[in-house]
């Protein structure tokens, strides 16, 4: 299975990445190689094998409902590209 430029364009849109035409060409080739490599897996006969939900053979990692301290607000906001004293600020979200 190989990727088309349109596939990569669509994935970049979903990932909110803006790629130049050159980057798109490079990405299509590189991602294509990765996908072809992964594609080897479909050579295996998985007839009758249940899909795996998790790589670890582990279930029920649950913890009690006891509150811990949260981050101080200035810490929570410190990595945001934009913020004010209280909130993260992002470009306007319209329509909702």
């Amino acid at each position, binding site marked *: 299975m190989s990727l088309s430029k349109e596939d990569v364009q*669509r994935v970049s*849109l*979903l990932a*909110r990445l803006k790629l130049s035409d050159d980057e798109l060409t490079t990405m299509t080739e590189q991602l294509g190689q990765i996908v072809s490599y992964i594609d080897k897996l479909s050579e295996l006969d998985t007839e009758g094998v249940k899909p795996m*939900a*998790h*790589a*670890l053979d*582990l*279930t*029920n*990692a*649950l*913890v*009690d*409902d*006891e*509150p*811990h301290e*949260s*981050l101080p*607000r200035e810490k*929570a*906001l410190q*990595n945001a590209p*934009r913020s*004010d004293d*209280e*909130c*993260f*600020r*992002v*470009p*306007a*979200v*319209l*329509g*909702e």
Partner: protein
Amino acid sequence: MTNPPYDVIIGLEVHVQLRTNTKLFCRCSTEFGNPPNTQTCPVCLGLPGALPVMNRKAYELSVKTALALNCNIPNFTKWDRKQYYYPDLPKGYQISQFDLPMSENGYLAISSPDGEFEDKNVGIIRAHLEEDAGKSMHDEAQGLADTRIDLNRTGTPLLEIVSEPDMRSAEEARAYLQELRLLLTYLDVSDCNMQEGSLRVDANVNLHVHTETDEKIATPIVEVKNMNSFRAVERALHYEVKRQYEIWQETGNRIGDVPKQTRGWDDNAQLTRAQREKEESSDYRYFPDPDLVPVTITNEQVEAFQQQIPELPAALREKLVDEFSLTPYTADVIVNQGPEVVAYFQSLAEHTGDAKQSGNWVQGEVLRVLKEEDWELSEFPISAEGLADLLKAIQQGELNNSRGKEVFSEMLSAGTSAADAMAALGIEKVDDSALEDLCREIVMANPKVISDVQSGNEKAVGALIGQAKQKNPNVNPGQVRQICLDIINAL
């Protein structure tokens, strides 16, 4: 409306915020109303390397709720990532459940005491456990074209309950929501506060239009959002049905002809508006979340949860009718008030030994006061035992029902017992021989009444009751009537 040429098809998606202290995957508090961004941590901020861990309580509350909705609880469930970019979703994906939800295939019975629709079971496709997003606020006040984001709510546990498209009218949809909310209240799994967003409703609605050849044509499905009360849901659905029929007549569009549309209810304008589609982002690309391990549950554990489920509204309504001989209407009124009022009624009925009288007093006086004062039952000052003393006094003829209501008011305002309130109002049981003497005196003073009664007009005795009450306000009118008639008939 007389038989419109279409069936209305409604399915509801309800998001219920579960009553936990902490979030679904981190131990930040879920308390409502705190300053923005004071309840966050690396996990719910989606910082790289942070790992989610499932809240046991949230899973348990989900199982209980699903069981109460008659759902099957699979022995194995897992969580998946639902990818989309939105500023209130810092990870870029929501942890939700895709192909193996924690419950499926249930139903909720709805009924209409006033016969608006026939009793039915609304199917539940699934209920699954997922995390909430944060809150976006458009900052118009500061004149900046910015949206402000508060992530306190991010990661709060939500149970998404998805119904089958089984509802055929806005009234059925409202009944489903009311019954669901009541059920959640009895289970004590959520505070169900719509204003605080603890219960959110989206509706999927379309029409099956009847054609002249007796075909039914499905129109495109519309998802309606932004309904902030049950009344808003009902109105939005009424509006949407009318709008869709008009569109059908105009365009003839069938399901599949146009993409599924999302519309928002504008409660001020009382109409729905098309919402901007999240365009290409609707490719959620679900895959199992590698940060979370699956959860398993044995049939024995499911059975143990089943045992923890309290008596639920539908069963209680039946019980109040079958065991307490209440009318279905009174049983419905009492059960719809919640488990505390039901317990109060049961205690009252036990103490008075008269379920009918107890039901009438709870439905009439107690609920009236709760409504007038905007009280919860816990704030109501008269205990079931205290009220039972009053009702027993009425049963024993010490006072009649309307005097009883005066005593009830006195008990409320003075905070006293039935006995003290009766004393304060000067109510004493009138001695039997004193009552007889009083009646004889009045009868003898009213020869006209005697002759009227003797000539067959028993109603004439009513005039004597008023006179007796003037002489002694504590007399029981029914007793006076009977004694006076006996005296006249024995003359």
